[in-house]
């Protein structure tokens, strides 16, 4: 079991007292799994992902990597944000990667950076600044950064939602290709059922009752997912 959560609980102070985003949430993923997490807007998908990454603290519970609890954030579990502008704009694409590599104290930063850029087909754009790149290229660049860092787990928070449908599909394909080649564990959050169905070895829905897993090979999966998403009664607070 490479990546697991045990008894994660997260609460936020809200208008009418403390609201629970999730409570006693547990799951475990084998090495190399690709889990897609679906959920309605505001249900807490991003919060869950941020807690898993260690950039937000849980009120209870632990995140475990290879059985060992994680103390905080680190490059072994990296995060891909929804925002296009997650590359630093004052550095070129290549510099973004070499900077991350140097800070992570990994050797041969230039070689690794160029290798990663090659894998996402961005070698030609290595010397460009992010402002000269399209949204899809920037997100692939962010992926390249995580790849270069050799992260064990990649947490992706709706990274392609703001792109047009064609680019979104291309980026999804790139991500799958990389996953098959590099064999990292991925947790991919989205609110789009179609996107969920095209990716992922596992699909789960985050609802008020917690994380519900679905059999990806089951017939009528799409309908089940729609029902699961529509389910839940009241609208959740906007935690994301």
């Amino acid at each position: 079991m490479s990546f697991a959560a045990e008894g994660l609980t997260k609460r936020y102070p809200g208008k009418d007292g403390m609201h629970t985003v999730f409570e006693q949430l547990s799951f475990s993923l084998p090495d190399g799994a690709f889990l897609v997490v679906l959920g309605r807007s505001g249900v807490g998908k991003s919060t869950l992902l941020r807690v898993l990454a260690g950039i937000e603290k849980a009120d209870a519970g632990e995140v475990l990597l290879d059985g060992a609890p994680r103390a905080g954030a680190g490059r072994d579990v990296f995060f891909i944000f929804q925002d296009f502008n997650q590359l630093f704009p004052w550095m070129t694409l290549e510099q973004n990667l070499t900077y991350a590599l140097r800070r992570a104290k990994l050797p041969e930063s230039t070689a690794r950076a160029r290798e990663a850029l090659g894998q996402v087909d961005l070698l030609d754009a290595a010397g460009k600044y992010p402002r000269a790149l399209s949204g899809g290229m920037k997100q692939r660049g962010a992926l390249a950064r995580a790849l270069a860092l050799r992260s064990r787990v990649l947490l992706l928070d709706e990274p392609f939602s703001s792109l047009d449908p064609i680019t979104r599909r291309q980026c999804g394909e790139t991500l799958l290709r990389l996953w098959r080649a590099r064999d990292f564990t991925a947790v991919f959050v989205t609110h789009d059922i179609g996107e969920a169905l095209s990716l992922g070895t596992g699909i789960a829905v985050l609802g008020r009752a917690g994380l519900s897993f679905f059999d990806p090979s089951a017939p009528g999966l799409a309908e089940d997912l729609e029902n699961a998403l529509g389910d839940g009664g009241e609208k959740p607070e906007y935690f994301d």
Partner: protein
Amino acid sequence: MKRGTAQFLWVLVLLLIWEAAARFSGVSPLLLPTVEATVASLFDALFHGTLFYQALFSIGIIALGLFIGVALALVLALLAVQSRLADSLVGTLTALAHPLPGLAILPLLILWFGSGTGVILAIIVHSILWPVLLNLTAGLRQTPAMYLDIGHLLSLSKPRIAVELMLPCAVPDLLAGVQIGWSRGWRALISAEMVFGAVGRLGGVGWYLFKERTFMDAPGLFAGILLVICIGVLVEGVLFSRLERLLLTRFGREETK
């Protein structure tokens, strides 16, 4: 018409208005000298008198003051952004000191530190530091939270996050603050020089201005004023705009698409 050309023409127009006023408005030439008398006096003072060295002195002091002021602002702002205690201390200092005009505390400073170059420098640094610090702090706060998250993901220490991730985001605000600081510092310098006399042998442009006024030399006085304006234009129009172009292409704020 290019903006520079248009501005140049406006300057010519203003000079013509000045000349016309000096000649035809009936105001005494002892109060308003003609452009030629002023320019003649300016060249004479620059090439045959002490004004050139006095100008160098003033420019030197302001440059030093800018350097010290910006350095101090950087240290204080970067400390404040990492520690809540430092932040409240810096905030309190700024709130107390920023509204104080340097010249109001001039007599106090002379009493404590005498009247050498050190005191003038202190006044200028005081005029420069607070606007730079305020702008820099505001700029640092504009760092997207996402960058801080990335910093944590990369396991960066707090100082590294402050210097390597937050400071680049603050460059436009820092530059704006430095421009404000420069103009406040320059004004404070000229006024302080009028008091301090010949600091460092000859004094600066401010002392030149004051002496021309007390010796009732109207063309000389206006020549000094003209010089102060020219230096200001050179610094702001040439130096700062170059600096802006250099830095803001790389560190400018992006428009969100």
